[in-house]
């Protein structure tokens, strides 16, 4: 099962078990259509009908706003933005409405919605590939999830749908897998086994996906896979990297990262989001506050530069953090 299928499976299970779960988005349920931007909802309208798999107009603000309202009325909506970049058309509904309703009602109302955002550079340019996690981690009231494997994607999505808070759920386009013409070029092949049954991965957890004693590398989504490739190269140089997949940014399991840093004494953070004000900066600050005395080298970040995302392959390569950049930074830190 690839990630697209794993996500679909999660929604199918949630919808079968809970009639209040509904899906909203553009092109998500059209017969003979796409199943959303990246085939994730393909076939769900056949099983659950167009009343629960709702094809909306191109109205991002209304999609999120309606999800907020439906959630307040007791439904569990899962709203899709065709590309994560389009969420900016709906930012008021996300930041001023979804995130704040529970607080503004003094806890009397809940907004259990999931907002699915496909992100990641895939040669479509500045308005179709930004990684924007930090904009949401900075907004109190939103949970922020960003899986790197199909297994995690399914378990985290099930947990997100059942969570009583608004969850912003990032999906990296190059990790969807998928077939034929709708598959993104440069996709990463993920051969993980995904159980068919219902399971949840609790929000607020990270995963140590490779153990090592020399340097801790924290990454999310596509960057986890680049960090794992980098770790192979580093191992050949005699450097053992511990890779932590930070699959949930809010709530953040900083304790596991701290423990790892106490062991390795070095912290490298890899993110596809822009450098300045990124979630990596927050982790760097937290580790500096909690474990500065353990560090043998300055904390480093490998991130996208502070420029919009360019389209050309040659420019995108320069923009998105590469295995080579991770390797060379780790080498500098462990020298």
């Amino acid at each position, binding site marked *: 099962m690839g990630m697209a299928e794993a996500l679909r499976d999660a929604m199918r299970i949630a919808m079968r078990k809970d009639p209040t779960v509904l899906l909203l988005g*553009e*092109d998500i349920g*059209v*017969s*003979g*259509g*796409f199943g959303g931007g990246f085939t994730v909802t393909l076939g769900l309208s056949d099983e659950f009908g167009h009343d629960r798999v709702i*094809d*909306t*107009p*191109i*109205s*991002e*603000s209304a999609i999120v706003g309606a999800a907020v309202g439906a959630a307040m009325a007791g439904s569990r909506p899962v709203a899709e933005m*065709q590309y994560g*970049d*389009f969420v*900016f*058309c709906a930012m008021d509904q996300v930041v001023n409405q979804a995130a704040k309703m529970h607080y503004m009602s003094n806890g009397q109302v809940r907004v259990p919605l999931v907002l699915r955002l496909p992100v990641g550079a895939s*040669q*479509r*340019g*500045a*308005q*179709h590939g930004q990684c924007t996690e930090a904009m949401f981690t900075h907004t109190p009231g939103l949970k922020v999830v960003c899986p790197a494997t199909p297994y995690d994607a399914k378990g985290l999505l099930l947990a997100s749908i059942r969570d009583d808070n608004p969850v912003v759920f990032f999906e990296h386009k190059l990790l969807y897998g998928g077939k*034929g*013409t*709708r598959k993104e070029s440069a996709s990463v092949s993920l051969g993980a086994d995904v159980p068919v049954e219902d399971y949840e991965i609790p929000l607020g957890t990270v995963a140590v996906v490779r153990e090592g004693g020399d340097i801790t590398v924290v990454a999310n989504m596509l960057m986890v896979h680049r960090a794992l490739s980098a770790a192979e190269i580093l191992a050949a140089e005699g450097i053992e990297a511990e890779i932590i997949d930070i699959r949930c940014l809010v709530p953040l399991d900083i304790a596991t990262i701290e423990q790892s840093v106490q062991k390795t004494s070095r912290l490298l953070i890899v993110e596809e989001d822009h450098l300045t004000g990124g979630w990596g900066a927050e982790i760097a600050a937290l580790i500096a506050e909690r474990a500065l005395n353990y560090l043998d080298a300055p904390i480093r970040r490998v991130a996208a*530069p*502070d*420029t*919009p995302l*360019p*389209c*050309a*392959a*040659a*420019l995108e*390569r*320069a*923009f998105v953090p590469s295995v080579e950049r991770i390797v060379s930074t780790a080498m500098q830190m462990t020298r």
Partner: protein
Amino acid sequence: MTHSIIIPDLGATGGDVKIVEWLVREGQHVDAGDTLFVVETDKATEEIPAFRAGYLRRVLAHADEERLPGDVVGLMTDTSDEAIVDPTAASVEPVAAVAATTSVSRVVRRLTASPRARHLARQHNLDLANVKAASASAIQVRDVVAALEGQPVAADWLIAAFRRMVLIRRYEEHLYQLFLQGLVPGTLHQCQGQEAVAVGVCSSLRRDDMIFSTHRPVGHLLAKGASLNAITAEIWGKATGCVGGKGGQMHLADFSVGAMVSNAIVGANIPIATGCAMAFKLQGLDRVAVSFFGDGACNIGAFHEGLNLAAVQDAPVVFVCENNLYAASTHISVTTRISNLADRAAAYGMRGYTADGMDVEAVSALAAAAIERARLGKGPTLLEYRTYRYRGHSRGDPCGYRADEEQRSWLARDPIERVRIRLNQDFGVTEENLGTIEQECQREIEAAVEFALASPEPTAESCLEHVFA
């Protein structure tokens, strides 16, 4: 079918609208966009165009008579000899904007030129006696334009339109073939079938007018005269691309011809074009901004906010909606309850017209009128053109959501074939001449692709350039 001609709501303060003159005689053929008659309100003199092609059969309100908005002032039929059906019967659809006695014997008072055509001719010291009306009996703006260029009316304009449309079609098809061979990087949103809208609109624009395009920009850009080489190099992500490789297929531009960077956020260019037009107006310039967008864009907030602002600001902007019936895979009926998107203009006190987007002459006539209105300071217009995209929404879309029959019916109305037949039959342009044009376009396209392929990649450092001015 009989269509009544109604006085539109002209945004005047109310009260009577006086008919100044009819520019078309009973029995005569009109094209969509041709001026039918001229009216005078307390605010201005206005030309009322036909919404659709057909034959003027009855004039029900004559020169110097006064009527109210909503009154029926004439009747049109689709064919020249069909029976006229009682206009009060429910099946009669309103056609254009204007009153209602039954006198049918009077003919048009005098037949000259439309006020805009007269205005344009005066500006250029052109004697109207030297201008020939191409279709309607009265001289229209495009006749003056043609006369100004010293060319025989219509034929050369139509040949130029044919050339542009062929260039766009052949370019898109060439890219598609290369895409099938895996040779085109990135994404691809193509406009085969929609060429008449781009060409009909842009052929009425000046070089210094600005257009704002979408994720499907090739037609608009080439119609505005953008560099084929620079566009092609951009699609291939080369340093010689129109925006240095930063943009890709969805972000094409040519600032030398007024084509701003095309926008991949649906609807985003609507307020932007509005602001551009507001600035033209504030700066005292007589330039016009055009926003292109699809049917899908009419449902995003930016559309509504942009149109309303443009209306209250009398911004010199023309909103061109290419209604190709689908937003990606979603049919318009799933997302929209009204049948004419142009009706939305009324909500903002703006004029809105729906016309055939497969007929470059109809497109151009209507667009020319809207552009000229904007240029004369009379505010924005919403134009909805019915059209169809022959290929998928984006690369690799097999169109599983569209019926073959629907596709065939639109292919049968191909805008390029239509012009080819018209040039051949009505203007005597030979197949050979048309074939030469096609070959010339093909050579230009192949040279552009060669240019792109031979161009260097952008340097990694250029990724960091131009974040700030």
